């Protein structure tokens, strides 16, 4: 009987060890939303870029909102895959203080962008990017490069290349739950440093 109990105990210990080993050795789950800790977020550089109507759009206009800032181009296949997701996010989260802002890096400008936007019925604002803005955001060597910006104008997540829809939606959901900081020390300047000025609100 004692021998039986010893064997049973040994079997249980081995089984637990095997199970723990399997768990420890399992392939890592896909990473969830890579939202940076609050303390590690840097201010998103401000820019002034024109939309299709020629109106200047400043990133600072979006302060207080969660912004998905998508650098893309009409010739970029992975960018095109993400666009319907962003259209869906725009519809789903707009009323909670969320906006998608597309920055097209097309060399051919509106000649290329306008028919594309019309054909795809893009429901969020698109502006025409330039090299200066690209440099401000790290050079943008590859597209798509997408920044998720918190209500305080700080970069909370960056995705270079095709990301998963869930990664984006998880990040957006998380950031929408966070309140904006008080206005002081919360504004955005083109050099990415803190500034105490008020910006208009994009409707």
């Amino acid at each position, binding site marked *: 009987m004692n021998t039986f109990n010893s064997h049973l105990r040994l079997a249980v210990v081995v089984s637990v060890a095997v199970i723990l080993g399997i768990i420890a050795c399992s392939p890592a789950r896909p990473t969830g939303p890579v939202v940076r800790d609050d303390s590690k977020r840097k201010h998103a550089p401000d820019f002034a870029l024109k939309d299709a109507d020629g109106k200047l759009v400043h990133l600072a206009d979006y302060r207080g909102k969660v912004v998905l800032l998508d650098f893309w181009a009409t010739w970029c296949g992975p960018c095109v895959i993400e666009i319907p997701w962003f259209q869906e996010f725009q519809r789903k989260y707009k009323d909670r203080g969320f906006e998608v802002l597309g920055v097209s890096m097309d060399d051919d400008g509106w000649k290329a962008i306008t028919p594309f936007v019309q054909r795809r019925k893009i429901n969020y604002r698109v502006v025409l990017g330039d090299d200066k803005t690209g440099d401000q955001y790290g050079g943008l*060597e590859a597209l798509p490069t997408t920044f998720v910006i918190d209500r305080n104008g700080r970069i909370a997540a960056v995705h270079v290349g095709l990301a998963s829809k869930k990664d984006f939606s998880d990040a957006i959901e998380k950031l929408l739950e966070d309140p904006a900081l008080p206005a002081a020390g919360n504004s955005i300047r083109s050099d990415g440093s803190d500034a105490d000025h008020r910006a208009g609100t994009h409707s």
Partner: protein
Amino acid sequence: MAPTLTIAPVPTVKAHKGSVAVVTFKAALPPGYHANSNTPTDAYLIPLTLKWTGGPLQADGITYPKPAQEKYSFSEKPLSVVTGEFSISTKFKVPADAATGASAQNGTLRYQACNDRMCFAPKTVPVMLSLDIE
């Protein structure tokens, strides 16, 4: 991170006045990358394009590499692309009044490359042929 398209050096082209010369050069992309072919499947995609911009020869037709039809994670349908090493040929007319001796033919190759997850800005690289006209 952006892939570099390399063009293999072409030996000096001996061209006879009043004749036709066919010149082929090889280009290559690193593994894992592709560029749109000269006839991409979507009007928004940027085609592989060779342009001869200067020199004594007259381009009379360019033969691009036969494209591969490849499916990527971001594409709903196969794309017309070139990968790895590929060749582009140009048929030149050598004018009867071309100057004898050494000269050069200059051009540019424009391409736009991607991998399975991201795309890179279109690039234009110079192409130069050394000529020996007889």
